[in-house]
């Protein structure tokens, strides 16, 4: 007993000492640390040969040049293309995170056919052959019923080969119902047409302006070609130019502006008129331009003097007459003054009256068709395809009125009224959706969803499983911009026609197909004159033939910009800039855009605001972008509204608390964020949140402001001019 214990204890002690002295524990310690430095579940990116490829970003209308860094066949970084006329090396937060879209989890990887109910998300993968056949079959069926006009198509733009192929398909097929997503371009084009007689977008020469008077345009949050605007703003700082921001909320643009005019939302047109009044009565306008190049000045002058005296407007705008006069005179006194139109990123058209009034300011200072001013952008005329032979069915269909009523006798000044989708659904038997997400980005989401439910056949060409794709019957996924060729003509306010070339950086990752090819294949499947309208064997051939002249430049530089051709003269009847005539008189006399729910039931005004950190068009916010969003905008799943602390306290709301936001259109639970930089009585909510589709990095975060705001038509033009909506927060 004693012996054994002795042995035992000595054995234990000896054993312990022995092990400690042996190399074993030390080797083990070392190996463990080395293992901890090479955990197999922490990725090690493979190295390889590095290259850069020039291309063009299509994630927003900006058309920036990008330079993509690759390691072997992996794209690893997107940078701005140096020397590009629009963004010269700069790049925005969305452009930077494009690779998260390319390699992201929400890509649609093959053509799909709905098997469950709409929006249920139950799909069956099908072959391209079958996908094309199904679309063509359905279109043929509709055509055979003699109702080709009941096929509509929504696209983000109407310029460029892909958009043109789409509308060409509709024309050959026999439908006038090509719809372009709403934007301030709708209003600008109308204003340009009325005043200058030119068709086409407005080009603003911000680079050469020295005084920018922005009526709520988010110069620093994605307006126009965003990086170009950033650069212009920085140049203004360097040259000590002046930026005046007219807005009811201290947006980034307002925060960086030299002066922030906190105007009551919705009264911008009046402010512009009052400023015109001041400029005219002080004879501060460009007398030479007015005398020789303007028609209808007296009538215009009379109107503003009768109706828009600063003193009367002060009340309505909340800006005292002294300030109005001061800014107006500063504007007129500037060397290159420039008034900008279009709220936020310019995703809503706004009222035509407002656009005309602001454009009139530019005319008063003679800042039309000259450097540092506004001009009608020369149309993109590089697409010269043979005329379409239309058969009898097509001819008949094309005779029909557009379903949205744009261009009709009652609404002659506008080309698209896409916000009316909700009302015209009954007339639509098939809807083709190309690179847009109307189910999220059109106002009054519920109504749009209801419209989709009415439309029997919806085809989405989306590359991502967005809200609209979720509500489609067929998805024919397009390559994303990093996998395809495409010409990118820029209309977003550029002063000179600019075409970028989007080209494949990587081979298509999935079983997707170029939208251009899908269109041609559908046409070919439909046969007859429709097939005949598409003489090319595939999209790439079509593109190269179309661009024959510029192809060389584009392939080399990635971008082509028209030589500086400022227009001279005006295509109007009097050959002058028309400041006032009967049409415009009617527009100026038309009622203001009413505020929906502007009564006691809704004591507050909800306005949407745009942030460059929140993608709010077709593309959803990337994980990287969401990561940069402040916790006063999104916290957990909750979205926050900005409200002035005084208003909030009056309503008994505490900073950070949750509350119910109700408008005539809908209601939502939101977080309350105190912000002194917002007008009392106003609550602001960002665009681009509240997605139900996409992945967990974006879905379910915040509220889609379009659920709470519906379209309000401008009595003069029919365009959606909603700038806010009555709201209740409790």
């Amino acid at each position: 007993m004693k012996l054994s214990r002795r042995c035992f204890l000595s054995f234990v002690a000896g054993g312990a000492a022995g092990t400690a002295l042996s190399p074993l524990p030390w080797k083990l310690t070392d190996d463990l640390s080395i293992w901890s430095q090479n955990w197999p579940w922490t990725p090690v990116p493979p190295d390889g040969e590095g290259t850069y490829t020039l291309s063009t970003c299509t994630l927003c209308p900006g058309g920036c040049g990008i330079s993509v860094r690759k390691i072997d066949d992996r794209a690893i970084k997107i940078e701005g293309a140096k020397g590009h006329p629009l963004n010269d090396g700069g790049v925005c937060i969305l452009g930077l995170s494009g690779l998260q879209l390319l390699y992201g989890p929400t890509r649609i990887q093959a053509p799909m056919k709905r098997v469950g109910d709409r929006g249920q998300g139950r799909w069956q993968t099908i072959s391209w052959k079958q996908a094309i056949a199904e679309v063509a079959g359905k279109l043929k069926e509709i055509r055979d019923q003699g109702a080709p006009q009941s096929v509509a198509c929504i696209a983000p733009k109407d310029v460029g080969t892909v958009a043109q192929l789409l509308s060409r398909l509709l024309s050959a097929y026999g439908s006038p119902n090509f719809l372009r997503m709403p934007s301030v371009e709708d209003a600008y084009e109308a204003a340009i047409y009325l005043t200058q007689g030119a068709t086409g977008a407005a080009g603003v020469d911000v680079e050469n302006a020295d005084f920018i008077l922005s009526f709520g345009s988010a110069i620093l949050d994605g307006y126009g070609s965003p990086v170009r605007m950033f650069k212009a703003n920085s140049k203004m700082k360097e040259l000590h130019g002046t930026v005046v921001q007219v807005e009811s909320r201290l947006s980034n643009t307002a925060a960086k502006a030299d002066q922030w005019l906190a105007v009551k939302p919705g009264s911008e047109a009046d402010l512009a008129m009052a400023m015109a009044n001041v400029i005219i009565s002080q004879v501060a306008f460009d007398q030479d331009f007015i005398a020789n190049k303007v028609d209808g000045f007296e009538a215009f002058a009379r109107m503003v003097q009768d109706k828009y005296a600063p003193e009367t407007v002060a009340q309505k705008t909340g800006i005292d007459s002294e300030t109005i006069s001061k800014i107006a005179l500063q504007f007129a006194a500037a060397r290159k003054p420039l008034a900008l139109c279009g709220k936020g990123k310019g995703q809503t058209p706004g009222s035509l009256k407002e656009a005309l009034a602001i454009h009139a300011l530019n005319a008063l200072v003679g800042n039309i068709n000259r450097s540092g001013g506004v001009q009608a952008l020369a149309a993109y005329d590089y697409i010269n395809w043979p005329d379409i032979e239309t058969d009898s069915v097509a001819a008949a269909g094309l005779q029909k009125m557009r379903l949205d009523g744009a261009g009709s006798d009652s609404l002659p000044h506008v080309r698209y009224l896409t916000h009316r989708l909700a009302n015209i659904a009954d007339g639509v038997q098939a809807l083709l959706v190309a690179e847009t997400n109307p189910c999220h980005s059109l106002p009054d989401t519920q109504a749009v969803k209801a419209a989709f439910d009415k439309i029997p056949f919806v085809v989405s060409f989306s590359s991502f499983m967005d809200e609209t794709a979720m509500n489609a019957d067929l998805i024919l996924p397009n390559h994303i911009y990093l996998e395809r060729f495409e010409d990118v003509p820029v209309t977003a306010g550029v002063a000179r026609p600019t075409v970028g070339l989007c080209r494949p950086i990587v081979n298509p990752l999935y079983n997707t197909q170029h939208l251009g090819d899908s269109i041609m294949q559908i046409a070919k499947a439909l046969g007859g004159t429709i097939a005949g309208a598409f003489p090319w064997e595939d999209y790439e051939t079509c593109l190269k033939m179309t661009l024959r002249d510029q192809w060389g430049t584009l392939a080399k530089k990635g971008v082509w910009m028209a030589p500086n051709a400022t227009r001279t003269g005006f295509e109007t009847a009097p050959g002058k800039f028309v400041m006032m005539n009967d049409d415009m008189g009617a527009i100026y006399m038309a009622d203001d855009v009413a505020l929906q729910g502007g009564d006691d039931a809704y004591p507050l005004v909800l306005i949407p605001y745009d942030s460059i950190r929140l993608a709010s068009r077709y593309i959803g916010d990337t994980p990287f972008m969401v990561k940069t969003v402040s916790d006063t905008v999104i916290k957990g799943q909750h979205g926050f509204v900005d409200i002035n602390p005084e208003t909030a306290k009056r309503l008994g709301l505490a900073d950070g608390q949750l509350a119910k936001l109700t408008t005539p259109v809908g209601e939502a639970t939101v977080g309350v964020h105190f912000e002194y930089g917002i007008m009392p009585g106003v609550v602001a909510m960002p665009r681009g949140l509240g997605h139900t589709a996409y992945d967990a990095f974006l879905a379910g975060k915040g509220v889609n402001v379009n659920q709470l705001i519906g379209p309000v038509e401008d009595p003069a033009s029919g365009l959606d001019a909603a700038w806010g909506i009555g709201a209740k927060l409790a």
Partner: protein
Amino acid sequence: MDSALIPEGVKRCSLPKFLLGLVVVGGVLAVGVYAMLECWIKGLNVTGMNDYYGFALWIWADLAVIALGGGAFFSGLLKYVIGKDDLKYIINYAVLIGFICYSSALLILAIDVGQPLRSWFIFWHANVHSMLTEVAFCLSCYFAVLTIEYIPLILENRQIDKVPFFHNLSHNMHGAMAVFAATGAFLSFFHQGSLGGVAGVLFGRPFAFREHILIWPFTFFLFTWSAAAYGPSFTLFITWLTEKITRKKLVKDNVVYLLAKISGWMIITYIIAKSADTLYWMYNTAPAQGFNWTFFYENNPFYAQWVLFAEIILGGFVPGLLLIIKPTRENTFLRVTATLLGIMGVSLNRWVMVLQTMAVPVLSFDSWAMYIPSWQEIATTILPVAYGVILIMISYRYLPIFPQERELNPLDPDAAESENKEAPAADKLQPAEA
């Protein structure tokens, strides 16, 4: 059944009751171990810490237990180096408590670091300018010393002692103990100090930053001093608690009074120095960095000037005075109260030096950062307490921790019974200890 292992001439409760006690405390321990494993397997995201609170509850616990464990090195210093021989009657327990505190500290650190498997890099790639390096080295060295001081105690177990080699080993270790104790004191001086330095050198953190003497900020000396001052108080408190729980007198009053008196004087002198340091910081150091001292105690839901009162007056001057004034010192209630206040004071000091330092906004546009520990952090912080209780239970049962116990508690037949009656109660009380 285990009577053969129990020291001769002392009475212990029956094995089942002892085991029951172990199970109760073991339960708490188990929860702690589970939380520890979560921290290791899932990572530190299970804690309440964030990028503003890289240091939090755990670091506080480390600083606190090491301060309280300071009783070991200081008593050792007093006995073996300065020659206060009476302390030999309590030194064993001081060593045991120290051993528990330091092993706990090391365990907590092992949970606290993000990469425990490479934590030895702190030695291998040592940056000698870092206070934490100094802490790591001295801490582990001193832990070795404590182990060396604890081993002979284990060897004195009745059965082990029968092995001649172990008997000799224990005897010889006692012989050489002065050397080890001296080395221990030397090491302790530095690691206690460098623990203070950890906060004091943060010149980016105006709340913690202090002026330097040579390379050492004032807090370096204050921490050593406070550990030497409050450590013995903790030893005394635990001893008192053990006596309460075992219903026995284990250490003679004169020994207790002696240690209490020394602790008292150390506390008083420390708190005077601490007050001077605080005033200098309020009116020189902080303003030089652009802060009014009041700023650190405003505009936040928790830290206000009560902290200063609680730490310096309530946890400093009060216990100090109670312990140096003979009548109050020799009044058990007041003495124990004093030690308790002291423990509170030094723990609060360690708390603010870590957590308030992290909470204070330094960038003018930043805001106060508050912090709530997760249950895993709390469980892993209680874990060492349970472990300590268990080690004390075992050591007390099988080792002659208290040399005076036999003399103070002569065995008489009928005492045995009463022991057995009390024992269960004692076991249940155990978890409350330490």
